[in-house]
Structure formats: C-alpha cells, structure tokens
C-alpha cells in the first residue's frame, strides 16, 4: 500500500506536469481547445493527491502534515483545489500556467523529501496542533494565490504603462480583477494566518522549550505576519497604489518559501517545520 501511495504521488506529479504543459501552450497560443485538457490533468492530479493523502491517513492514522515534505504535499493539494474552484468561478484560465508551474515544483520537492516514519510525536497527537497546521496551510494557500495574482498584476501593469502591449496584455485577465483577487486572497490568508499563530501561541509553552519564542522559525512566521499586516495596512489606510502592495505581496511569498522550506529544515530547533 505504501508503495502504491508513492506511485500515486509520482503519477500525480506527472499529471500536474502534463497540465502545466497544456497551460503553457494555452497561454502561448490562446487556443480554447488546449484549456480543457489542462484543467482535466490538473483535476486528475488533485484527485490523485487526495487519494494519496487519504491512503496515508489510512495507513499511518494521520494526515501527511508531520514532516516538511508531507506538509508541502498537503499544501499543494489545497492550493490545486482552491485554484480549480477559482477557475470555475471566474471562468478564467490564464492563472493556470503559474499555478500548475508552482505545483509541479513544490510537489516534486515534496516527493523527494523523506516522509515521516515511525510513531507520531506526542504533540502531533493533540488535535489543536493539527488544527494549527491546517490553518497555516490554508493561510499559505491563500497567500500564494495572492502572490500569483500580484505577479500577474505587475506583469500586465508594466506593459500598460510602457504601452508595449505585446505579450501579457492579450493573455492575462483584467488588471482590476488581478488586484481584487490578490487583495481578497491575501485578506483571507491573513485571517487564517492570524488564527493559526494565536493557536500556536497557546501551544508553544505547552510543548516547546521555555524560550520557544526566540526560535528562528517562530520569529520568521511572525515576520510573515508583519509583512502581510503591512500589506493590508498600506492598502486600506494609506490608499497605497496596488503596484506597491503587489511588491509587498511578492516579498511576503518569498519569505514564506524561505521560512517554510529553509529555515524550518535547517535552522529551527524548536519547530518541526
């Protein structure tokens, strides 16, 4: 069964890769008949991930959220699922190339990273810890969508300001839509992030060392929170140009990647990832 799950993860990655290929071609050629197979393979990838996640739960008794690799895998599942919902709701497939590309990279990385084996560490048996992890993953999903939308916003705005309406102009959705999507995604992601951090604060003293709050990972998450608080603050209270907010969103996502993958793996002593 474990081998089966492993095979499913790699086939899922293949499906995402095929989806990415079709999204690239659709983005390039703007032929609607390329969009359907792109969505189909993305959906197939998401379904295979769902089966793999459920399979692991069946075997291990818990969802794959214990190690960095597992959490990345689960994060990408939420990410793909949320994007599919957005694609149906907005009837817009221009995002697909960026989304599928990101999923391919992260699922590939997650497949390479070792899964957790053995008994579940005591603190993971606490349901509150699991809720904290899921909230953080939901948060990162929303903030990632916000990043993609901000990136697309900047690419399109550049062409509009320079009046060089060549590539992204005819391929991306409307500028205001991208801005709205970025703002709303980050807003929702920030709420989950805030609640996730609050729960973490209550758990920290219970399970971690007495100076847990000085841990690099904890500090890095707080920095993430500050970055997005700045984003929302300058946007709502200072009426900052969406372009400036988009740069903040890019910084925020970059920091999430650093925090999630690098800091927690190599620098944190108190936090698992």
């Amino acid at each position: 069964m474990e081998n089966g799950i492993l095979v499913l993860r790699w086939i899922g990655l293949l499906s995402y890769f095929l989806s990415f290929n079709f999204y690239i071609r659709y983005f390039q050629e703007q032929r609607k008949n390329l969009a359907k197979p792109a969505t189909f393979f993305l959906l197939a990838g998401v379904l295979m991930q769902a089966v793999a996640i459920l399979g692991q739960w069946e075997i291990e008794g818990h969802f794959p959220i214990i190690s960095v690799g597992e959490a990345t895998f689960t994060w990408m599942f939420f990410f793909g699922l949320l994007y599919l919902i957005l694609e149906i709701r907005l009837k817009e497939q221009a995002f697909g190339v960026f989304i599928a590309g990101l999923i391919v990279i992260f699922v590939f990385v997650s497949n390479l990273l070792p899964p957790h084996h053995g008994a579940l560490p005591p603190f993971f048996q606490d349901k509150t810890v699991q809720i904290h992890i899921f909230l953080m993953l939901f948060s990162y999903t929303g903030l990632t969508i916000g990043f993609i939308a901000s990136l697309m916003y900047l690419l399109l705005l550049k062409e509009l300001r320079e009046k060089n309406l060549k590539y992204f102009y005819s391929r991306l959705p409307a500028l205001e839509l991208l801005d709205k999507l970025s703002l709303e995604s980050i807003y929702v992601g920030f709420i989950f992030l805030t609640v996730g951090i609050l729960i973490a604060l209550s758990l920290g003293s219970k399970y971690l060392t007495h100076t847990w709050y000085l841990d690099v990972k904890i500090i890095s998450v707080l920095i993430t929170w500050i970055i997005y608080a700045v984003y929302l603050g300058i946007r709502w209270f200072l009426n900052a140009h969406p372009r400036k907010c988009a740069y903040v969103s890019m910084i925020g996502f970059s920091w999430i990647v650093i925090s999630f993958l690098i800091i927690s793996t190599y620098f944190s002593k108190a936090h698992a990832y």
Partner: protein
Amino acid sequence: MSEIIVVGIKLPWIEDEANRKEILGLNFRNILRRVKSEIPFEEGMIFRTPFHIEAVFVSETIDQTIQSAENLIKSLFPALENLPREIFFVWERGEAIRHFFEVILGVGTPIPGDVIFLENVKEGYTQSLETEMTGPVLNRLFQTGVRIYKRLSQSDAFFTGAVSIEAAIAELGKQIFGNAENIHVALWGESSEIQNLIGYFRQVKFGSLQKLTPESEALMDTSDRILQPKQVDILIKANGNASTEKLIRMLQAQLKMRHGAPLLLIDLSKNPEQPLKNDLLLCYSRNDLEALIRRNFKEREKSVPGLLKRLEKEVREFISWQYSRERFEFSGIIGRSRKLQVVLETIARVSATDVTVLIEGESGTGKELVARAIHENSPRSNQPFIVVNCAAISETLLESELFGYVKGAFTGATSQKKGLFEEADRGTIFLDEIAEMSPATQANILRVIQEGEVRRVGSTQTIKVDVRVIAATNKDLKALVSEHKFREDLYYRLKVMQIVVPPLRNRREDIPDLAKYFVEKYGHKNAKHILGITEEASALLQLYPWPGNVRELENAMERAVVMTIGQHITPTDLPQEIQFFSEKGQKSGTPWPTLYDVEKQHILKTLEYVDWNLGKATEMLGISRATLWRKLKDYGIQQKYNH
C-alpha cells in the same frame, strides 16, 4: 455536372470616386433582376461587401455563365471598360468555395474578422432567396459559411484583437477594468468620431456614457469647483480644444475618488500630452491606439495560414457533399426540385427550435416523413417520436389514448394508463389528420400546447409534460375554421410554423430520383437486381398526374419491381392507369392537365417547330434565353439545341 463559380469586381481598385459612388449607389434589386434574366445559371446569389461586389453561381455551363456575367458587369458599370483587367476575378469549383468562406471571414481585407462581411453576405443571400435564385447548393454553402464564422469567431486567434479606434479603446478598457458593464466612460470635446464612439460603446454595453458638452464646461467654471462627471474609468478627450487646466482639475478629482483604481485617459487630439503625472493615470494617444491596432492586425495575419488550413477541411467536405447522392436527400426525403428545397430549408430551420409545426399537403405527399425529419434533426432526436393518426382512432378512444386515464374512469378502465402525450415527454408527438379531431379533444390539445399539462381522463390532477407538437392535415383548416368545424385558437396555435408539402405533380423533376430510390428499395426487398428504368417508362412516369402522390408512386414502383422479368422497368411493368395515360387522350376520370403540363408541351412544340434553335425559340415564346434555359432544366427536357 453543376459547378460553383464566383464572379466579381474588387472595389478598392476603382480609385475614381465617381465610379465608386456609381457602383455603390446602384439599386441592388435591379441588379438581381438583370442577373436573373441575362445570365444562365441553376442557382445564384449576389452580395456586396466594403471591398467587392460578387456573384456566386451554380451552373452546368460555366463558360457561358462567366461570359454572360462579364457582359452584364460591363453594361452595369460602363466606366469599368477602361480599368485594369485585374479588378475582375473569377474563381471556380474548390477555389470558389474557399473564396466564399474567406469573404465571410474578411481574409485579405484591412478589417479581417469584422462581422460586416458576414452581414453583407447574409443580406445578399436573403435577397437572392426572396427572388428564388438560390437552391440546395447555395443554401448549404451559405449555412456552412455562417457555421464556420460562428465556430471560428469563438475560438480562433484570427478574431481576437481590436482593429478600429473605438474597438481598441473598448479592448483597453476591458483589459484594465474587466467586464464592460462595470466600465464608465466620459467623452469630452467635439469631433466627427464622437458619434462613432458613442454608437460602438453602446453596442458593447459599457456601464455608462457621459458626454461632456461645452455647457458642462461652463458650469464647471461658474460654480468655481469641478462639476465633474460621475465617477469615470475612461475619459476620452476628443480634440485639442478642451482646456488643459480644466482637464487636470477633473483628473485630480477623479483620481481622488478611485481609491487606488487606475484611470484611463484617451487623448485623440492631434497634439496629445500627458497633463498629469500620477501612478494611477494611464494615458494613451491616438498613435498608441493605432500601434495596438497594427499589432493586432499582424497577429491576425499570422493566424491566417492556420485558419486557411481549417478552411481546407470545410472546402473538402463541401465538395464531397456536392458530388454525393446525399445532396438530394435529407432524412429520407428525396428530391432536387426547388419547391422541395424550400420545404427542406424550412425543416432545417424549425428543427433547431421547439415551435409547433403544422404540415399541410395532399394525401401521400410525405407529411409524416417531414415530421420525422424535423424530430430527427432537433435536440429531441434521442427522445420518443410518437405518431397518432387521429382519423384512425374513434372519437371516444382518442381522448383516452392521448391523455391516458385513471382506474375506474370508464367501463373497462381496470387500471390507470399513461397517455401518448406522457409517452412523448421530452420528445415529439405527431398528430396526423388533426382535422378529424372532435371539438372537445381540440380544446384539450390546446391546453397541452399552451400550458404544457395533461389531465388523464377521470383525474383532477394535472401532469406536466414537455412535448413538441407537430400536426398534419390534408384538409383546408382555414376553411374548416370559418365553418366552425375547427377551433380558431387551436388553428393559430398550431400554425406557428407552417410547412406546405407540394404535390408530386408540381415537382415532377423529383420523379426520377424517387422512382430510382423505390426501385432500389423494392429490388433489394424482393432480391431482384434491377438496373434501372427505361426511357419510355420514365416518360410515362413524368406524364402521369399522380393524384396519390409519392405513396402512389411508391406502390407503382413496388408493383413494377415485382412484375418485371428483365433488369429494367419497362412501360408494361407499370400499372395500367399509368401505361395508358397520354397527353392526347386522357382516360375518363383522369385529372385535367396542369399549367405545368400545358407550358411544357408548348415549349416542346415550339422547339420542335424551330428545329431546336434556342434563339428562334426565345423570340417566338417571348422570353429571354436564360429563362428558356431554366425552364428546360425544370421540365427535364433534353437539350438537342442549336445555338
């Protein structure tokens, strides 16, 4: 063999303004009339686009048709005599078909993909259809062209990108602000293109349009504050007369209201300038828009090879259909006559809808076949098709058959039963001989059609049904209405769409195809290998008036197949009434000769008298050569003529 040709002239080649006006000002209906009388063709269609005047013909004698068309063009436009030969063009066969599709798509014009080409062709087709110039080939050609346009315009890169100033502004607006209905536009200043812009923006359904007049500028001054327009997303400055200072103040006020959303300023004046530096302000001049249009045009041009490849497939399929037998068959209805083509065109159009249809025609003309064809080509084709012969079922039984009954509704109703309307739910019900229905049943039918509900006999509950109703009759329903034998309200409800199936004697050119079909059918059924029908037998079939229509023809051919001992159907194999029917002495009781018979015989006599000299024949008959040619074709008269 009939071929398609396209003949036309290219308008851009005619540089002389007076000549262009002369051509564009010509009465199109006059041109149609002259084409009909002076050019020999089987089918024809004329249309005019911004860049060509063209005629599409289906003709067996291509050279004659082309020569006659050129002569007509020269006589219509004498000024063209001195212009280069290149302005005339002629396409034949596959190239003609491809060219026609390219015209509809606007390929090779400065405004490729613009819908005006389709609209122009549609207008020309409609006028040609009304003057009975078109036929099955051109009908199919036009419908194929429309289908190609609709399909490609939704998916092909050839159709994307604005190629006019107003479209470029709309495109920019949508790319910045999203859906058109959320976009608010203000136009400032006067210019000749303001009306074009307003018209276009109304078409694309922008959220609101405000025209800032000189009066509103004055109001802005006297109130000492900006009487700005309501919040706008796009501000279009039409000319250079608008005060820069006022513009800046207006922009500043607008930008304050926008809470971070961008504002698009379009400056169409000759000397555009950026009045304000602001992160939220995007300024575009006429030159910028024209650069966008040039870029879009290049993209469309790049997509042309791919588009032409897709067209090739359509051209091949069309040619294949044109040369196939299926050209004269549609859902089991066989015939090439114009009268039948009109019926088939109507079937094709009503099939796509759910309208109630009333089919009228003599007995044996194929009314049930027509009903079946409508059903089979409709979205309900996978659902039931229920046939009810109202004359064959007694009055008392008809109601219970149609609407069903509940247990105990009448003696013998030991259990409940679904009616035929319920059986036909989501499908089609064909009510043949509807004139035989009693008034009470007529009232119930009317309710079903109007409310979509049936009530079983003996029940108080109504049941919703979704049934398409097709009715048929061989009686004059209108006369029955005036005699109060048929409900007027039901009559008008039934004849939302009316199809009159012509009797066989009015479409004699279909007799050979039908006879051949029946011979093959019954030859196969009786395991007889029949090669065909002799000329003498064919002549008899053509002569006979067919009071029983296609059914009688079918019976006659079935009998002939059974009776024949050779490999061909001969006169002696045919029923006696057909064998002994002749022009000179009609059997007592046989029908009076029709106008068709009389005219045909007169033309034949005239041709024999002038030894088949067409020119002399036209003089004696007082008709044009083209008209005579067409009548020879209609009557199936063999052409042994001398020019």
